[in-house]
């Protein structure tokens, strides 16, 4: 076992990059053509897994847990839900 630091501090930051939490997803948000790139979903995503690139929301499925908050907040109703298989 590795040495443990006082108060469980992890000295090498960024360890959560390795943990691809997208595998927890049971439902998957899909951005459709109606996306206006307004960034509401980007602000609301609790996992910071959405970025608006070239006027359109782009979801990072490595870390999207499928909470579907983006679909709930989307003003243009541009996000659809798909079941993960």
């Amino acid at each position: 076992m590795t040495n443990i630091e006082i108060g469980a501090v992890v000295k090498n930051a960024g360890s959560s990059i390795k943990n691809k939490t997208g595998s927890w997803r049971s439902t998957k948000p899909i951005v459709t053509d109606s996306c206006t790139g307004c960034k509401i979903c980007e602000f609301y995503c609790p996992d910071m897994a959405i970025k608006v690139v070239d006027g359109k929301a782009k979801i990072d499925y490595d870390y999207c847990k499928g909470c579907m908050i983006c679909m709930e907040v989307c003003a243009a109703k541009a996000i659809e839900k798909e079941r993960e298989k």
Partner: protein
Amino acid sequence: MSKKTETVLSGAQATAEAIKLCKPEVIPVYPITPQTGIIETISQMVADGDLDAKIINVESEHSAMAAAIGAQATGVRAYTATAGQGMALMHEMLFVASGMRLPIVMSVSNRTLSSPLNIWNDQQDSFSERDSGWIQLYVENAQEAFDTHIQAFRIAQETDTPVMVCMDGFIVSHTYESLELLGEDKVKSFLPEYKATFKLDPANPVTMGPVASPDYFVKFKKQQQDAMLGAKENIKNANEKYAEISGRKYGNGLIELINMEGKENAIITIGSMTGSARELAEKHGIGIIRVRCLRPFPVEDLQEACKDLKSIGVLEKDISFGANGALYDEIKAALYIIESRSKVSNFIIGLGGKPISLEDISSIMEKVKQGKEGVEWLD
């Protein structure tokens, strides 16, 4: 020689004066009786430019402790104060602060817990948090409140463990007493600059408060327990070193022995009730052992102080429902280890602000001398 300042202050004001000298940089606050006097005085100091700190008006005590945790994690001193229900609302965050090993200092102006609603003093609030991983120091009067806060910042940063300084609400917090403050230079010589073991710093990123799997979790908890047990030495040492700058000393820092020489019987006290007991100890020919530090629990010191006593009465302002007074049970457990045959009795006194008269203490002292056993409520 730096100047000595004699003045008349309440326990709350004396605490604020100590905080001013220790210079915490972030002070998240939420008012609650009987603590408000502390925060009110500190807020005034900040508004007047006498203390350079950020006051954050938060929406609850849970948030106050959360903000203190966040602030201390960035490598600065954070401080807050609470009482009673406010402390109960902090419960979850107290464990986070101690688990993350953040040396936050907090004042507690002890108040009972509802229900029924009652704003007055007993120690049910902080006794209920004795397992929270915070060092707990209980003071007797305003002078000791001032002195102990300055010691608390040193003990906290030496042990990476948060410290709460508990004073009896109203009895200490609101009573005006003549006391002596210390000059800034003396405090500076006693309290080294705070250098965090770890801190949140964009230039050197670390992760604080992560998830820990069971194997690791046990190790962190053991590490925390070792730090707590080790803190006894830091508390004793702070008491000694503080005496060098102030001329004031409180027993060995963990417990204080009063009128104990050659005595066969003693009462054990905690907090302000000790003042009344001091008045009567000689008259009744009985000793007093004051518990100043409840966590870490000074087992060895209490065993040593009690080992030859015939009868011991534990006085306390809390009740562990379905058991007894919490201090009584811990004292008995400590005595069991040394196979002591002392008679031990428990007096539950002063709950919800019920006054403790000199007559009450006199009658307790006489009962203890007669070898009383078991639990008695003074109602």
